[in-house]
């Protein structure tokens, strides 16, 4: 439904997007992950027609981008960008009119969204008086007034407590199940793991790894991850080299990429004689994949 082909964008000498390509099928959530400055916001701005790409093509439902696509795309910005002094209902009615809905059509769509997003109790409440989670909900609802086929969610749960986050995840899954294709950008890897059927990791303006979580696991040459701290790191490194184990350093942490599944006791035995401060075992997760893919 969305296909991005060889997108390029530069600001002066700085290349922000470098032949970026990805596609999102119907009823899918595509997670776009990457460090700050990787090109996520520029990609979204181009998708929304706020910026022009220097090269490349974007197709929505087979059609190249133009103003017409504003009617099939819904964007949920990271900030709560609705009118705080208006009620939830007034915000929905206002944006319905902006998207060309009038009369009974506008009222009907507003009612539908209030019900679909469980906003009934707050429809006459000013947005300024809502909690963070409910503000996020109305922020999403406003992007749905014109029943878009594609929804872009930019950090939809940033700054929310766990309960509100779970509520919104359920809502996003319901939207996907209702037939909306979703592009999600997030820094919360747990969110991407939970929601996305396909994940693209973007770095320096291009996709460096892409696929389902299972497929992405293959980029880590490990069955398991051991996180180790030692007072004598040189000794530790010599030992793991002798076993042929690879290691990575993420910040101050030393990560051992275990080529096969071990239990903790076996690893401690293999590292016998090395002064260990702490050691723990983890399954390979999106965090490790992300760090591996964005490794310089």
């Amino acid at each position, binding site marked *: 439904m969305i296909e991005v082909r060889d997108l390029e964008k530069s600001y002066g000498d700085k290349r922000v997007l470098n032949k970026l390509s990805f596609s999102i099928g119907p009823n899918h959530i595509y997670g776009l992950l990457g460090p700050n400055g990787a090109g996520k916001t520029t990609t979204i701005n181009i998708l929304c027609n*706020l*910026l022009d790409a220097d090269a490349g093509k974007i197709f929505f439902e087979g059609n190249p981008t133009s103003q017409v696509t504003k009617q099939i795309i819904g964007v949920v*910005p990271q900030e709560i*960008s609705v*009118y*705080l*002094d208006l009620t939830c209902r007034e915000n929905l009615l206002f944006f319905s009119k902006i998207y*060309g809905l009038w009369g009974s059509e506008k009222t009907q769509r507003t009612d539908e969204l209030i019900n679909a997003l469980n906003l009934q109790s707050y429809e006459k409440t000013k947005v300024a008086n809502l909690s963070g989670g409910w503000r996020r909900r109305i922020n999403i609802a*406003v992007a749905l007034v014109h029943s878009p086929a594609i929804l872009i969610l930019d950090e939809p749960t940033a700054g929310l407590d766990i309960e509100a986050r779970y509520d919104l995840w359920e809502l996003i899954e319901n939207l996907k199940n209702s037939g909306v294709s979703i592009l999600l950008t997030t820094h919360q890897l747990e969110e991407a793991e939970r929601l996305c059927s396909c994940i693209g990791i973007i770095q320096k303006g291009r996709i460096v790894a892409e696929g389902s979580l299972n497929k992405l696991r293959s980029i880590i040459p490990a069955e398991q991850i051991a996180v180790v701290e030692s007072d004598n790191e040189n000794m530790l490194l010599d030992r793991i080299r002798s076993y042929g184990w690879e290691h990575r350093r993420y910040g101050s942490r030393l990560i051992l990429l275990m080529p096969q599944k071990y239990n903790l006791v076996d690893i401690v035995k293999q590292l016998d004689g090395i002064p260990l401060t702490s050691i723990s075992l983890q399954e390979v997760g999106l965090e490790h994949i992300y760090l591996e893919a964005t490794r310089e």
Partner: protein
Amino acid sequence: MKSYINEIMAITNRILIELVRMRRSLIFWVVFPALMLILFGLIYAGGNSSAKSFDYTAPGILIGAALFFSCLGGPVALIVAERERRTLRRLLISPLKPISYFIGIVFSYVVIAFGQTLIVYGIAFFFGGRFHGSILLGLLIIILSVFSFVGAGFYFGSRFTKRTEDVNGPVAAFGVPLLVLGGTFFPVSILPSYLLKLAYLDPIFHMNQALKGVSALGQGVEDVSIHLIFLGAFTFLALFLGARSYKSMLAQEKRG
């Protein structure tokens, strides 16, 4: 055409609802000119009859204490708030046409100005003041004044103010001296001749003189033509600069 009208109505309606909700601005825009009118009306009444004093005071108060703050300060605050809350960016993503947004804002301030005119002249009438000239000509002067202020508001809001805290600075720094020089609160006859010459470059002077001429003295188009020409030229300039700044602000917002 229908979609333009619908969009303009949506913007105007939204701004007016927000204004009613934000009672603080509404009260300021009503109470301040009302109190200023009563105060200056009574001060100038002195030995004269109060009716005549209110005849002369109402036009200046309407222009300087009512329309200036609502129609110049209002759009500046509105644009800054839209940028700060990122709602402007959301509107840019929507199919809303930029011209509809611009006209929607102008219309909402025409409605507000109409309400303020009713209040100011309502109070003046209560104290015996009257509108002596052509009401249509008076409305034309008021509309041109509103357009000038809103155009200037767009210019300042787009160019010089990025945060809510920045709003009062340019309005006070550029506006209040123009109010004083324009004879808002006292007759320009007390100005020294060199300041009077300078006052001819002040659009508020022409707004005041034109409206005072029509409202208090019952003058016609010929009598106030010089002020109308200045006011018309300034309105065109303000709207042109406002629209240009608005266009460059939208381009800047799109870049993020």
